[in-house]
C-alpha cells in the first residue's frame, strides 16, 4: 500500500512504531502533488519548505502516541487565512494578500501538530458550485477530468479524492463542502453553526458560514473535527457548550435508530435517476442494519433557494464592503479621487459572480425592497428552521441525496447563473437552519460518484458520524479510487 492510501489512524500507528517518519509522509504528499497536479489543479499555493521544516521538528521531538494528528498532512481552503502564506479566496482582489495572523482553525491544527501542505482552489469568495469562478485556475474532477469537482470548496475535495492529501478543510455557506464531497466521492462535514470558530475565515454569509473537514473515511473526518471545534472568544457566534470526542461511540451502529426521509428531497422530477436509486438502496442498507425508516415532510424546502440567495447575498454585500483598495487588496491605477479609487478597485478586482451577488444583496437591502426581500427571507428562514425542529422530535437524523445531478461538464452551467443556483436546492436549507450535515459516498451514476447527506439535530454531529460510519463499514464505496492519468 502506498503511504497516501493510509487513513490518519494508520499513518499515526506507523509514526509511533517507527515504520514511517513525518518527513517521509510529507515528502510523499509533495511527490504525489508533483505527479498529479497538472491534471487536477487543486492547489493555489504550496507551503513545502515550511511543511518539511515542521515535519522534521515533529520527527526530532518524537511522536506523542496520544496525539493522533501530529506530523500528518492537511490542505487548507484558500479563504482561511494563514500567517505568512498568500491567501486569495481565489480573487484577483486578494492576489498578493499575505495575512498577518492565522485563523483559529489553523492555530488549532498547528497545536494538534498537523502539517499545512498548501492552499486550495475555490470559487471566488466561496461563491459558486463548480470552482469555475476561481480567478486563477481550473480544478478538475479526478473521476473525470472533463468534469467540475463541485464548489465552492472544489480544490479541497479534488485534492482528497486524487489522493494528494488524506484530509483538508473547506467552508460551507450553502453546500460548499457537501456538494464537492458528493461530486468527488468523499466525506464532507458541514458542522452545526457555531461549532467551529469562523475567526480568520474570509466572511461570505456570516450567519451561514461554517468550516468543516473533507476526508476519504468517516473516522478521519471526525478526528479533524475534534481538532478544530470549540469556543473561541474571537468569534462571538462560537458555541460555548462542550465539544465531545466525535469518534466516541462511532462504532455503535444504527440499530433502533429512526431515520427520517424527507419526501420533498426525493420527489423532484429533475433529479438524476441514478442518484435517487443509490440513496434508496442506502436506505435499504440502513434497514438491514436495524434502523427504522420513516417518511417525513419539510414543507418549506422549496423556499430554501430564494431565501438563501437573498440572505447570503445581502450578508455578502455588507461583508465585501471592506474591499476598498485602501488597507490591503487590489488597488486600481490612474484614479483621480478617493471615490474613483473605491469604485475602480472593486469593479476591476471582483469577478462577475461576486458582482452579481453584491448587486442582488444591495438591491435586497435597499430602501423599498427590504421588507419584500430581506425581511421576507428571514421569515422564510424561521419556517425552514421550524420544519427541521419538528421532524427531529420524531427521528434521530435525516437521509437525502446531496445533489440533484452528479458532477457536470466544465463549462456546462457557467453561462447560466440561475441553473447554477438551483443546483443548491438540497443543501441550502441545512445552512438556513444551522443544523449539521455530512455527505458520504453511496454509489455511482453515469460512472460518477453519488453522495447522500445525513442531516442531524443542532450540535449532534456524533449521531451523524456514528450513522455514516455504520454505512461505510457495511459498504465499499469509500474504498474506490479514481483512475485518472497521473493517478495510480
Amino acid at each position: 500500500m502506498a503511504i497516501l492510501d493510509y487513513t490518519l489512524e494508520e499513518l499515526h500507528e506507523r509514526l509511533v512504531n517507527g515504520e514511517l517518519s513525518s518527513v517521509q509522509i510529507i515528502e510523499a504528499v509533495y511527490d504525489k502533488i508533483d505527479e498529479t497536479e497538472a491534471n487536477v489543479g487543486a492547489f493555489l499555493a504550496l507551503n513545502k519548505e515550511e511543511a518539511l521544516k515542521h515535519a522534521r521538528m515533529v520527527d526530532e521531538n518524537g511522536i506523542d502516541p496520544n496525539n493522533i494528528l501530529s506530523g500528518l498532512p492537511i490542505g487548507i481552503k484558500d479563504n482561511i487565512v494563514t500567517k505568512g502564506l498568500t491567501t486569495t479566496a481565489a480573487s484577483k482582489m486578494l492576489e498578493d494578500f499575505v495575512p498577518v495572523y492565522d485563523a483559529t482553525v489553523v492555530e488549532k491544527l498547528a497545536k494538534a501538530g498537523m502539517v499545512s501542505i498548501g492552499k486550495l482552489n475555490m470559487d471566488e469568495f466561496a461563491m459558486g458550485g463548480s470552482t469555475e469562478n476561481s480567478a486563477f485556475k481550473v480544478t478538475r474532477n479526478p473521476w473525470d477530468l472533463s468534469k467540475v469537482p463541485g464548489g465552492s470548496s472544489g480544490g479541497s475535495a479534488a485534492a482528497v479524492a486524487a489522493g494528494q492529501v488524506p484530509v483538508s478543510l473547506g467552508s460551507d455557506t450553502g453546500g460548499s463542502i457537501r456538494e464537492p464531497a458528493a461530486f468527488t466521492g468523499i466525506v464532507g462535514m458541514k458542522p452545526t453553526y457555531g461549532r467551529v470558530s469562523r475567526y480568520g475565515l474570509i466572511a461570505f454569509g456570516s450567519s451561514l458560514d461554517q468550516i468543516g473537514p473533507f476526508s476519504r473515511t468517516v473516522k478521519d473526518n471526525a478526528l479533524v473535527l475534534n481538532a478544530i471545534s470549540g469556543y473561541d472568544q474571537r468569534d462571538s457566534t462560537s458555541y460555548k457548550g462542550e465539544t465531545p470526542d466525535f469518534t466516541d461511540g462511532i462504532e455503535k451502529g444504527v440499530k433502533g435508530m429512526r431515520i427520517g426521509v424527507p419526501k420533498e428531497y426525493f420527489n423532484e422530477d429533475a433529479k438524476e435517476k441514478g442518484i435517487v436509486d443509490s440513496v434508496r438502496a442506502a436506505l435499504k442498507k440502513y434497514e438491514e442494519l436495524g434502523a427504522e425508516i420513516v417518511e417525513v415532510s419539510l414543507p418549506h424546502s422549496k423556499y430554501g433557494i430564494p431565501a438563501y440567495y437573498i440572505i447570503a447575498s445581502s450578508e455578502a454585500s455588507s461583508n465585501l464592503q471592506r474591499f476598498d483598495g485602501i488597507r490591503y487588496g487590489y488597488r486600481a491605477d490612474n484614479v483621480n479621487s478617493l471615490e474613483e479609487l473605491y469604485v475602480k478597485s472593486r469593479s476591476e478586482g471582483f469577478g462577475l459572480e461576486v458582482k452579481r451577488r453584491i448587486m442582488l444583496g444591495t438591491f435586497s437591502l435597499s430602501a423599498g425592497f427590504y421588507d419584500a426581500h430581506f425581511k421576507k427571507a428571514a421569515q422564510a428562514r424561521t419556517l425552514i428552521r421550524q420544519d427541521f425542529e419538528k421532524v427531529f422530535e420524531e427521528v434521530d437524523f435525516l437521509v437525502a441525496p446531496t445533489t440533484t445531478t452528479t458532477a457536470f461538464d466544465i463549462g456546462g452551467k457557467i453561462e447560466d447563473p440561475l441553473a447554477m443556483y438551483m443546483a443548491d436546492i438540497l443543501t441550502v436549507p441545512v445552512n438556513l437552519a444551522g443544523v449539521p450535515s455530512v455527505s458520504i459516498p453511496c454509489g455511482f451514476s453515469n460512472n460518477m460518484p453519488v453522495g447522500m447527506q445525513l442531516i442531524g439535530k443542532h450540535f449532534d454531529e456524533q449521531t451523524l458520524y456514528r450513522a455514516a460510519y455504520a454505512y461505510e463499514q457495511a459498504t465499499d464505496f469509500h474504498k474506490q479510487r479514481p483512475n485518472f492519468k497521473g493517478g495510480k
Partner: protein
Amino acid sequence: MAINEETVKHVAKLAKLEFKEEDIHDFTEEIDKIIQMVEQLEDLDTQGVEGTFHGITHHSVVRKDESKLEIDREELFKNVKTKQDGFIKVPAIMDNGESGA
C-alpha cells in the same frame, strides 16, 4: 421586468461598483431573472412569523472589554499599497467637493 437599467445603475452606485455601458443591458436581464426567482417568496404566507437574522439561537458571547495588542502595527501595514509617515496614502479627497465643507 422586476428591475430596469436605471435601478441597476442606482444599485451599482450604492455598492460602489460600475459596469460598462455596453454591458448594462445584458446584466440587467440576467439580474432580473434572479430577482424574479427570489420573488417566489411572495407566495409564502409569513404573517406573524418572526424573522431569523442570526445563525445561532444561543446567546451571543461577548468577551471582556480589555485592550490587548494582538497584531503589530508594522505587520498590519505590510499589505498597504502606498504609505507615508506611518499613514496610508490615498488620492486627494478635498479637491472634488467630497469634503462636505
